[in-house]
């Protein structure tokens, strides 16, 4: 009897530690969930208004945030230079507007044009980062500022003068330099505004039900294929038992709440989801999940763990690092095109400048760190960061009588969370190296006494 009690006590104690560990490890995310909840309450927003805004924002921005994951896996830290990918996307959009290719064709053409630019920029960036190992983040940050200067020089000074530009309506009145704002269409066939978002639109409850069913079917098919091929090894299972239970529970909750929402006829039913955009985001999520299982993905992780060990193991470290950066920059260029087709106009000299900082702040709020990032961090971060964006000006006005304070607060949060993440990473790295030194000293001491 006492044995049983002891056992019970032990499991309970173990659980307590687990909970504590979970809370400590996810401190930032939990803090932001609380801040977002309080911000939402004080903003006085209605839920369906919030939902409409957040689905749009998360839909258009997630792709860019996901572009950050691969360099983190490869141990290159947070890629501040996705700004350069965004520039590639904008170059493509300017060309597509010049060629006046409308609709989905224009969108695809933009992707096609952006990709080679992004590959070239990514290659150059990767080569530079190979020369500054250990200082990747500051290098990519300064490079993005430098590239912004070059971008301005080309599009503000050269285009229309030295570089011919046949469409004068896109140029400033003085005859050269691209206008500050370029319209990307009217959303009704001309241009590419909203082409991706408008392909399929479902109401929120419908989308929840359909997506849940699709997810269940997908998981089922995955396990069926594994079974038919006779694969049983747990290590190759990309989903895993824990996530399987999570997916099941979430799916069940989603279906129940969707049916409830439909039954009550609340205004939430009028909010629609740009399904196709979310589908594209889901594809990138799947790609990121699956690449980890490939040879290339394993190389990324090996380099991320220890560059020297990876080198000794026969991995071409520099080449693999360049591949990681090229992938990130290409995804960022596509992400910026998706972002701008939603906005519908291009702020030629401003649209890209904040892209890196916002995406990085978002993924960090979602629970990522300099050395650890996954799809979950990116998506949760997107939701929390944009919630903060929506609610903070309103909450600021209601709390302090000044919306400006809320706006400055969210800017501070973006910068502050990045500073915090960098400090925490550096502290952890230092503790680890101190542990290593102590371990070595102890070993030496033991050898000496032997």
């Amino acid at each position, binding site marked *: 009897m006492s044995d049983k009690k002891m056992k019970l006590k032990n499991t309970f104690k173990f659980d307590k530690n687990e909970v504590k560990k979970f809370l400590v490890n996810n401190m930032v995310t939990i803090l932001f969930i609380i801040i977002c909840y309080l911000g939402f309450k004080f903003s006085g927003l209605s839920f369906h208004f919030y939902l409409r805004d957040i689905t749009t924002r998360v839909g258009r921005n997630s792709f860019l945030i996901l572009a950050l994951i691969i360099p983190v896996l490869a141990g290159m830290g947070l890629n501040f230079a996705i700004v350069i990918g965004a520039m590639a996307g904008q170059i493509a959009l300017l060309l597509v507007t010049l060629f006046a290719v409308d609709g989905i064709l224009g969108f695809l053409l933009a992707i096609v044009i952006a990709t080679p630019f992004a590959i070239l920029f990514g290659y150059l960036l990767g080569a*530079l980062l190979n020369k500054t190992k250990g200082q990747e983040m500051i290098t990519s940050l300064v490079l993005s500022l430098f590239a*912004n*200067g070059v971008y*301005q020089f080309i599009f503000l*000074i050269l285009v229309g003068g030295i570089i011919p530009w046949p469409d004068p309506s896109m140029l400033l009145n003085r005859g050269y330099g691209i206008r500050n704002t370029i319209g990307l269409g009217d959303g009704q066939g001309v241009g590419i505004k909203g082409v991706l978002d408008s392909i399929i639109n479902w109401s929120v409850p419908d989308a929840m039900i359909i997506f849940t069913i699709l997810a269940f079917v997908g998981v089922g098919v995955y396990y069926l294929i594994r079974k038919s091929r006779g694969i049983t090894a747990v290590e190759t299972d990309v989903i895993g038992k824990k996530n399987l239970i999570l997916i099941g529970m979430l799916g069940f909750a989603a279906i129940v709440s969707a049916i409830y929402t439909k039954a009550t006829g609340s205004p939430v039913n009028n909010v629609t989801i740009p399904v196709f955009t979310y589908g594209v985001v889901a594809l990138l999520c799947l790609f990121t999940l699956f690449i980890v299982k490939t040879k290339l993905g394993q190389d990324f992780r090996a380099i991320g763990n220890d560059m020297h060990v990876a080198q000794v193991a026969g991995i071409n470290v520099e080449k693999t690092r360049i591949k990681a950066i090229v992938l990130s920059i290409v995804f960022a260029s596509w992400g910026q095109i998706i972002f701008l087709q939603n906005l519908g106009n291009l702020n030629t000299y401003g649209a890209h400048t904040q892209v890196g900082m916002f995406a990085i702040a978002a993924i960090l709020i979602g629970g990522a760190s300099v050395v650890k990032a996954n799809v979950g961090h990116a998506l949760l971060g997107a939701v929390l960061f944009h919630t903060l964006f929506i609610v903070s000006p309103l909450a600021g006005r209601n709390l302090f009588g000044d919306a400006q304070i809320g706006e400055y607060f969210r800017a501070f949060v973006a*910068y*502050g969370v990045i500073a915090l993440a960098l*400090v925490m990473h550096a502290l952890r*790295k*230092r503790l680890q190296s101190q542990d290593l030194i102590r371990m070595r000293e102890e070993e030496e001491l033991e050898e000496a006494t032997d």
Partner: protein
Amino acid sequence: MIKSRIQSIGWPRIIIFGFLLTLSITAIGLGIPMDQLLSSTLVRVGMNGILVLAMVPAIVSGIGPNFGLPLGIICGLLGVLVTIDLDMSGYSALFTAMIISIPPAAIIGAGYGWLLNRIKGSEMMIATYIGFSSVALMNIGWILLPFSSPETTWPIGRGLRLTISLEGRIASLLNDFWKIPFGKNQYIPTGMLLFFLLACFLMWLFLRSKAGVNMYTAGVNPKFATSSGINVDRQRLIGTMMSTVLGAIGIVVYSQSYTFLQLYLAPMYMAFPSVAAILIGGASTRKASISHVIIGVFLFQALLVVALPVANEIMQEGNLAEITRIIVSNGIILYALTQARKGD
């Protein structure tokens, strides 16, 4: 022989000097009045000099270029705001602003230095983001701080203005001190240049004192310094504090010459041109001296000053000077980053 000499001067300096020379010759060819260019260059050297000098103690003590300069800049801005609120003007206001900005700058610098001692190896990136977040936090501060002078606050609504005119307060005091007029309405800002050179001289003296040598040793070779009884972390802390204090004094000098106080987002990127200037002068992320400051700030500012009218003659484009500044300053920082590992 030529190769080694080139290496000792460094390619970036040669390229920038060559670029400056080409621009200057073009300027003469275009008939742009040289006296005006010279005067503007000297004014801008005096304006930015102390902010560049602030990089010296940081690099010498081993934390590298101080990308967290906005911390000091904010303290300096606060000093000037306090003197306006106290309705002070003239030299007493100028020096009061400097003196009252020193204690907060020293305290914040100490805290910042304490943090930098705990994150060795990642100083540059963290300093950058400490600078950014402090500017973002002070945006809220500029709204909430209890300043009341109608010169500094919005007539309607809350908070401090975006830019505050210093006319009738401390504007151009140092510029006009012993100023030597020449050419057509041009002048040499003697007072401001003397103030900059005095600060440089004091720093030069400090680096030759025992305390300065200790700091230098701690920065160049921390292991050797520790074994010879120097507390490396303490030297780094002192270096960071000095850099932050110089940042505060530097922005007071800058603002009196600019004749406006710029709040909110203005200090965000102010560290970058200062870092770039000292690097152009020949410093690296681990080595810096007074000569690097003086050469660097002159080359960098002369380049910007000459580029503008030349560009205006060739094409009516006001943004070109700003674009040149972005490309040159970030380009030189990138170059220094690629060279940093070779120095290790």
